[in-house]
């Protein structure tokens, strides 16, 4: 009897476990992965929040200058308030809105002189978007990631504060911040997005944005560079226009091993130069793959093509056709309430393309990042995290202490920057 019971239970248990994944893809829009939702009735509005408090220890080259010396230690907090509304119309059409309020002001603001202690706790909007969904798929509109950010596979950010897409950036400043081309780095510029239903494991999506601007206003005090709709300007501008992204994604499982993969394209024009050569059109290929089994998540991504780091168009400089190649790989392991992981990324690009008159181009830029860390889930909604991140940026002829190309006589000064960030602390979500 016992054998029958236990044996049968094991089989049934396996079936239930196998089906849990499908159930987890339940139906509640905006909801974190979880059990299935059984119905869509009426409208619901929810308020959610996030808070983190970290201790950080940072070392960054060129932090000690005649203008001042930086210490290593700091406490940081960050807050998010989310308002989400979801509903289903009588004809079956689903709809909703997500508004994410945060005090991470610096990240979303256009930098104009570095972090300002008087304003960094101001609230701003991170993402704000609405959607309608049905049998035809889903259309989103508003300030949201492009489809690469939404559908990319091989992105290992489920440990510590998010691996190389985590919170260590907040401890670095200026030239210490690398452009590692994480899939969410392309930005939340206002756009329209279409994402298809899934067919035999495949779904696809496409998004379009006229420019890199966010929010309700055109940003135009004048017709100058602050304008979202800026089309051309004397000297040109490295800013994306007519941004198109398309993604094809596959998700499935074979013998208990989950597989996800994507291929995609991201392209954009740039603000043209009315007085000379304009920046070149950006054309990037996107690929990624990931595997999940036995608590492990292993994956990688590759971004390549005509463009510069940070999903930027490349300036049209004579003799400079260097392509951007971006590699990312990561692994994580979850056992019970603990997840540990590591990420590595490397981006090779043209980097700086501005030189002093009469000087040769600077060398290609190489940026590397390594992150290792872990998460302990104390209880639902409370996590303790710890992580270490190493950043290295190199470019011959470029001075990372001044943020500009060197004169030929001092070509090798400041060509490399190292940064180390250790952070630990707690984060909460409700």
């Amino acid at each position, binding site marked *: 009897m016992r054998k029958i019971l236990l044996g049968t239970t094991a089989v049934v248990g396996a079936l239930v476990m196998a089906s849990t994944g499908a159930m987890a893809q*339940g139906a509640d829009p905006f909801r974190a992965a979880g059990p299935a939702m059984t119905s869509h009735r009426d409208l619901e509005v*929810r308020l959610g929040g996030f808070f983190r408090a970290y201790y950080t220890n940072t070392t960054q080259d060129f932090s000690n200058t005649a203008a001042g010396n930086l210490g290593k230690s700091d406490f940081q907090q960050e807050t998010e308030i989310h308002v989400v509304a979801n509903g289903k119309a009588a004809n079956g059409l689903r709809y909703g809105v997500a508004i994410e309020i945060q005090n991470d002001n610096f990240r979303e603001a256009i930098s104009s002189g570095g972090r300002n202690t008087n304003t960094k706790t101001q609230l701003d909007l991170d993402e704000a978007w609405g959607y309608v969904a049905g049998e035809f798929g889903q259309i989103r509109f508003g300030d949201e990631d492009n489809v690469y950010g939404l559908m990319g596979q091989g992105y290992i950010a489920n440990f510590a504060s998010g691996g190389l*897409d985590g919170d260590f950036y907040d401890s670095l400043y200026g030239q210490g911040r690398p452009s590692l081309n994480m899939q969410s780095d392309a930005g939340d510029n206002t756009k329209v997005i279409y994402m298809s239903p899934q*067919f035999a494991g495949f779904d696809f999506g496409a998004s379009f944005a006229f420019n890199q601007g966010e929010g309700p206003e055109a940003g135009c005090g004048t017709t100058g560079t602050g304008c979202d709709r800026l089309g051309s300007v004397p000297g040109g501008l490295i800013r994306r226009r007519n941004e198109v992204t398309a993604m094809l994604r596959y998700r499935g499982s074979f013998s208990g091993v989950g597989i996800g993969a994507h291929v995609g394209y991201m392209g954009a024009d740039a603000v043209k130069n009315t007085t000379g050569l304009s920046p070149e059109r950006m054309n990037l290929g996107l690929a990624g793959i990931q595997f999940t089994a036995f608590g492990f998540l292993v994956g990688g991504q590759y971004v390549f093509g005509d463009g510069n780091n940070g999903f930027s168009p490349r300036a049209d400089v004579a003799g400079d056709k260097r392509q951007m190649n971006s590699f990312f790989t990561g692994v994580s392991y979850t056992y019970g309430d603990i997840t540990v992981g590591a990420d590595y990324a490397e981006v090779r690009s043209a980097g700086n393309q501005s030189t002093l008159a009469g000087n040769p181009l600077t060398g290609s830029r190489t940026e590397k990042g390594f992150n290792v860390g872990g998460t302990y889930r104390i209880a639902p909604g409370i996590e303790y995290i710890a992580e270490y991140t190493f950043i290295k940026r190199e470019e011959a002829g470029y001075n990372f202490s001044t943020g500009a190309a060197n004169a030929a006589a001092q070509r090798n000064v400041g060509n490399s920057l190292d940064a180390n960030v250790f952070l630990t602390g707690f984060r909460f979500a409700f």
Partner: protein
Amino acid sequence: MLKHRARVLQIARPVIASSLMLLALAACGKGRIVENDEYLNDSRRARVGGRLSGEQDGLLIMGTDRSGGGAGGRGAAGEAGLGVNAYLWRATLDTLSFLPLSSADPFGGVIITDWYAPPATPNERFRATAYIMGRQLRSDGVRISVFRQELRGGTWSDAPVVQATATDLENQVLTRARELRSQSAAR
């Protein structure tokens, strides 16, 4: 300009071709709707497993609770429509699901199965009754009784059950409940 267009086509051709094919299928409305939780949410909040509030997605401030609940997000307080611990409830259903279900009362926490005769031993049959004792996930939170009958002379008669059988089933339930809770916390 032509060179750039050629470059675009070179990179994007496979994506465009596949996407057009899927778009045609989408027009037919034959695919599975992809839910919002199947797209990456890059907010910091989305990276935290579970919710302090016990809700899947924050506090309901207006409208009808449409989450349907689940052991995942609502924690030990139980899901909507449950009067008992959600993990124990689901784990008990999972564990006893090889038996045909006769009745299940999610408010009182009672699950009663129908008789089941294993194919290998058609002359004996089993039935189980499970009681979930409350809202807390604890080792004494579930009680299972197993009944056994033997076919004797064409009629079923009560027969003794090894006491450890019920205990084993209870342990299976607790193990499964712990798994469900871990999975919930890991999300």
